[in-house]
């Protein structure tokens, strides 16, 4: 049998999966662990919809074999807040109309969350630079930048 057991922490809880070699973290999250908040927009690292945190670092889960995250801590959008208890960032997205079709939103929240952890008062330029790998075809990006600035203010 070529499938291997891989154990890691998912949103703070230990999980274990059986995966064939080179199965992506993205596919394991979405298909085995029910974490469909992480999306699959391109599966070649170009759209950012698969962004998660691995040991706190923003990572494109479509490019990472799940074996590579053995014993590490993975945080998905589900670990950043819920509909009942959204994070300040998620609330800002919701109230600021920073989401239209919504498909880019989990990736945007994931990268913005990593940004605000490191830089609690980012300029619009710094926000733009952080979002550079996340494609949005609906909003024209300005409402998203504004929501992140708004969230940063709420969090300070």
């Amino acid at each position: 049998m070529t499938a291997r057991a891989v154990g890691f922490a998912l949103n703070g809880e230990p999980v274990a999966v059986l995966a064939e070699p080179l199965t992506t973290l993205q596919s394991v999250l979405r298909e085995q662990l029910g974490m469909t908040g992480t999306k699959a927009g391109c599966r070649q690292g170009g759209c950012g919809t698969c962004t998660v945190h691995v040991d706190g670092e923003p990572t494109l889960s479509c490019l990472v074999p799940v074996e590579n995250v053995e014993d590490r801590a993975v945080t998905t959008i589900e670990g950043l807040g819920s509909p009942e208890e959204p994070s300040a960032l998620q609330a800002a997205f919701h109230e600021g109309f920073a989401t239209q079709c919504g498909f880019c939103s989990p990736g945007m929240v994931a990268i913005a969350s990593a940004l605000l952890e490191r830089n609690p008062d980012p300029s619009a330029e710094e926000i733009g630079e952080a979002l550079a790998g996340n494609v949005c075809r609906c909003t024209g990006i300005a409402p998203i930048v504004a929501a992140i600035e708004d969230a940063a203010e709420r969090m300070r």
Partner: protein
Amino acid sequence: MSDAKPFDVIGRSHERREARGHATGSTLYVDDVSYPRMCHMKAVRSPVPHARIRGVDFSEAERVPGFVTHLTADDVPKNVYTILCLIGVEPDEEQVLASERVRYKGEPIAMVVAETEEAAFEAAAKVKLDLEELPAVFDVEEALAPGAPIVTHWGSNYFVYEGHHCRRVRYGDAPAAREQADRVITGRYQMSPIEHAPVEPTGCIAKPEADGRVTVHTNTQAIFFSLDNTAIILQVPPHKLRFVGGTVGGGFGGKVDVIVEPLATLAAMRTGRPIKYVYTRQEEMQVSSTRSANRIYITDGINDDGTIVSREVTSYEDAGAYSRHTPYGCTKHAANAAGPYTIPNVSIDVHCVYTNRTPSSAMRGFGVTEASFALEMQMDRIARELSIDPWELRMRHAYRNGDERPYRKTTEDATLIETMLAAAELAGVELSADLRAMSSDDRGVPA
């Protein structure tokens, strides 16, 4: 009126209910849905832009572990995809799966179904196609020249509009007026095809139900449209299908072509298993339809005082290999090709041209946006050459209430002047008193 209630919706900001799910990743999109025993379907597509199909060999594909079944043209009950057949618009020229000929790179020839997505990719890659490549044409004017490779089955590379080779508008006598004009200004404007590139790829899941119906989760923008077209293609009564949708990860007109549902539903009926058919990013970018590219020639007869006395527009719209929405788009284009301006002599020819490129289809304002692009470049060109303020040129010619459009409808409820004035103010552009005094009810333009 005194006890009329104040508005409690209009004029206020309201929570957008879906946004909570979007921002927390709990909204379900098509690809987030999964069923037990679900299979994956992938397409076998033409690698070349124009070819005769001589054979399709599945023997190696069938040996891939996890292979379940395949579909070809023979399996499709009514193998015709005519997007607007529901409202009687022809022609019937595109197949759901190509049987004898392919006309664009990426045209689907067969489908393979397998237990896993990986097995489906592998099996699709192992299907052997015996194709006889044919000469191809990629340029709209080349496609209309004598001797061009013919794309369509009816022997010409253009759509026939009620017996004519193009959509035509004739108003006044543009050639004669041009001869009398002080000067002639021409322009050639070329667009590229534009890909919608939604962040969510096109896709659906078709799941057979115990009662004989099929549930189809789809990200189509046009759910009733997709259901009815699927029923026609599969030759089943519409009530056998239950389409679930409305959550679309970006469409912009690119998810109104009924492309994935018929074949996924057919495969589900054949195998008795749920079938997921989702485009890869590569398919989404190359195979799915685009906005059509136009080549637009504008010839204007203009007097030295800046009055446009004639406008002739010849436009070639690249439909690609099949019609889809383009013949309709060309009609819209023809109606708008002289612009929102009152010009006494207008002649418009819009050609719906077929080439061996990816079929173009609907995209945000299709037919009209292309016209605007060319027209406004042309207006700026006129303004530059005659040293007229570009605002003045437009406002003088803007249609007013009561003006007759080139297609002979009388303008009503015009707000073009007022909109331009508001835009100028917002943009901080100072307009002369004369311009600021204009309105949609004046007769500022000499006939």
